[in-house]
């Protein structure tokens, strides 16, 4: 196995590659291989937040407000969230592949598109 008995640490150098490192308090073996960063953690927290908001919304107005939107599809709120998230992935990828810099514009576009989806689709 590649990832046995070594733990993430910023003191890693080529000189200490073969040495067994001391385990720090937060170096759970379970978590280090997952390679969390605050950016990706923030992304998943945002997704979880979306779910929580959806649950609260459902509590407030039960039924999921189904309708037939502009695409001719029967959608509920959950479908609209799914469409928004998936299209935001495509918007970001498209921006990266075709344009490149200033990715935050793609994020703004995604939010605008998500609002459109929740209104009309």
């Amino acid at each position, binding site marked *: 196995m590649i990832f046995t008995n*070594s733990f*993430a640490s910023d003191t890693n150098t080529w000189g200490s590659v073969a040495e067994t490192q001391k385990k720090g308090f937060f170096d759970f073996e379970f978590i280090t291989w997952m*390679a*969390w*960063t605050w*950016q990706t953690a923030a992304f998943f927290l945002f997704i979880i937040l979306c779910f929580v908001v959806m649950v609260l919304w459902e509590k407030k107005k039960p039924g999921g407000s189904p309708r037939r939107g502009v695409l001719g599809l029967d959608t509920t709120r959950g479908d609209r969230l799914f469409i928004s998230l998936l299209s935001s992935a495509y918007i970001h990828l498209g921006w*990266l592949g075709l344009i490149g810099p200033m990715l935050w514009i793609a994020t703004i576009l995604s939010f605008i598109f998500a609002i459109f989806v929740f209104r009309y689709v």
Partner: protein
Amino acid sequence: MNKTVNQKAWFFVVPVFVLVAFNAIIPLMTVVNYAFQETFGNNVFMWEGTRWFKQILISERFHAALGRQVLFTLIILVIQIPLGIFIALNMPKEGIGVPICLVLMSMPLLIPWNVVGAMWNIFALPDIGFLGHSLNAMGFDYNFTQQSGDAWFTTILMDVWHWTSLVVLLSYAGLRSIQPAYYQAAEIDGATRWAVFRHIELPKMKKVLTIAILLRFMDSFMIYTEPFVLTGGGPGNATAFLSIDLVKMALGQFDLGPAAAMSLIYFFIVLTVCWVFYNLMMKNESQL
């Protein structure tokens, strides 16, 4: 009648959720984490931002692998779906022929992927394999280990052999569920064989065919073991479909970052197609 709302039933979902967390959610989160970082192993990671996604999106190699994958899946669907329907239409409807046909049809489905690959590898070897040797003896210049056209031919033939039965079995089940009254009515109207197929059998098979196409799409879009054992993605990169290329990148070159970015793009494509099929199936449900 008032239904009692009891949300405690959700606790029954917990075991499945834990299982899915360990075999899908946690690995997927890890892939997302890896897609933004560079590593040389040893659990040391360096932040790279969106570099890998840019690299994959403009890489010739990814475009080529994706193109091959889409082409392969399209060829598979174009061959297997009509062929499956055709075989199902011609299967016996009663008597001893039914179990014989069903068992024969099910056999390829029971063989593990790697065994199918190994079987076809030996079967198609140009010097000792039955298929390869016969083709060469008949004057065809056939060598799937060296000519990419032959490699494609063999891979597609193998997949058709392995999976057409699935389409046959599903279509047959769909056909058997049609009431005899429809056929009798068609006979009274003097409908041709084609009209019976077009206006009775095909609409009645719509549901199962949607599922058949979805299953065949999914299986052929993520195909790995069979071409890996048969051709190993070769000759060159001729049959290196998406998953083969992905594994080469992730494990062969240990480029975990780019491989993670690529697998996320792969995942989005699959998710989109599944969503489209889900909506088609829901439309079918609401019509019937």
